[in-house]
């Protein structure tokens, strides 16, 4: 291997260059490997999805019409989070056993206090509770919204700022797709 900017060859370090007590375990290596594959694989697929949309927009002036694209687009939100989490696993497991490379090990940096487990569970409970409350509040807002008659005002949050009937059309069909008109609520 050589660095194109200098032309000098790079020395590839083998695992035997690392002292045995600072090597990651096989288990950790496997986790990093898998997480890396997930991160790069999903990241590439998400990128290709964007390319698909861009190509369709450039050549046909409309979003892709296929069902596959819609499924992929719906999944993209969750997959983006999965990709991000996989990336975190790569960094955090990949750094083991160091918290600061060659300066400080994770076990030396960790607090000596015993209550950390309690904190961990308290934070988990708090955020699960917040997530449940958030979903319930959003659902209640949506119910009230529909019971109140849906869009009564063009000034809906993040909604299109067009007159009512046009706005409903535009919302239901998004881009120029006249044959996919959704039923008006």
């Amino acid at each position, binding site marked *: 291997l050589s660095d194109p900017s200098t032309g000098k060859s790079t020395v590839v370090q083998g695992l035997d260059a690392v002292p045995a007590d600072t090597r990651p375990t096989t288990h950790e290596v496997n986790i990093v490997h898998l997480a890396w594959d997930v991160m790069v694989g999903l990241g590439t697929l998400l990128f290709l999805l964007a390319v698909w949309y861009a190509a369709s927009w450039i050549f046909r002036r409309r979003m892709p019409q296929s069902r596959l694209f819609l499924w992929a687009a719906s999944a993209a939100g969750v997959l983006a989070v999965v990709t991000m989490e996989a990336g975190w696993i790569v960094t955090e497991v990949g750094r083991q056993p160091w918290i600061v490379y060659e300066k400080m090990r994770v076990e030396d940096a960790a*607090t*000596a*206090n015993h209550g950390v487990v309690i*904190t961990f569970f308290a934070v988990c409970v708090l955020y699960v509770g917040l997530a449940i*409350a958030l979903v319930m*509040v959003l659902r*209640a807002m949506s119910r*009230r*919204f529909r019971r*109140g008659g849906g869009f009564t005002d063009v000034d809906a949050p993040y909604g299109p700022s067009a007159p009512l009937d046009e706005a409903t059309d535009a919302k239901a069909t998004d881009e120029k797709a006249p044959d996919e008109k959704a039923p008006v609520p």
Partner: protein
Amino acid sequence: MSTTIAIVLLLAVTAYVIFGGADFGAGLWDLVAGGPQTGERPRAVIEHGIGPVWEANHVWLIFIFVITWTAFPEGFAAITLTMFVPLTLAALGIVFRGAGFAFRKAVVRTKYKRWFGGAFALSSLLVPFCFGAIAGGIASEQIPAGGKAGDPVSSWLNPTSIVVGVLGVILVAHLAAVYLVRVAHREGDLEMVSYFRVRALGSGLLVVVVGVIGAFILHAKASYFFDGLTSRAAPLLVLAVLAGAASLTLLWWGALRGGRLAAAVAVAALVFTGMVAQWPYMLPQTLKYSEAAAPNGTLITILVATGLAAALVLPGFALLYVLDQRDLLEEEGVADIGDELPPAYVDESN
């Protein structure tokens, strides 16, 4: 160099107490405002008063943490190691508070408003107490240095911590009441003006009472801090007392604007007093600021970064506060159809 950073830290703590502290105090008045009927108008004033600024004010807390752990890592490690219980409680309280405040606006039924309002108000009580208790624990020398943890309970539940925690709660409540007088005045709600003025005067007198009790406890339990209080920090303490007296007098006379300024000066002077009283120690008689400080290169970098951040952030803050004071900000959130439904529907669960 470490002195300069310590002053930056002091200014940040002062800003957090004056601006953020008042938000916690407002939550306290929300807690004691009474049932849904009697409490409706004070709560509306509170919501209106802190709605536009309460998230922005937490910038100061984050700034304080970042400065402490980058500039004084030894001190930060010692404080967090010993004080992790109140720090965790404060962190959970801040999350609860924000969520409760935000969700309360989004629900219409009284039952749910009560739940979320309760979360908001109770954590408004918890957080200033925890921060005060930490300050009291530091002043009364409960925190060992050098990577050893102090007692996780008695380090922040001892007489000094408790009295400083209680003082913190009452102080922010007083500050909030003084500000809310002004908010109510701006809204032209004269009844609420006198409502909060009574509370501002009452809590101001309570600050004096708790302060005097605190002085005795500090004398007994925090000798280095108390010595500082009567020597190094004495002029600042006098300033705090004078400004506090001026604030209460002006409020009594109905000079709301001057009263608010004097109250802020009094509280700022009190924060300065606390820090100067234990100078040059970050942890009295254990760790000096100069000993806890990071290497000079780090400190210079932090100073430059602080200058840049100030240049970027302070104009935004100034604009936010000016717009808020002139009532030019929209209410948080979006008007909701549910808000206009008849009360019969809203209260169907009760």
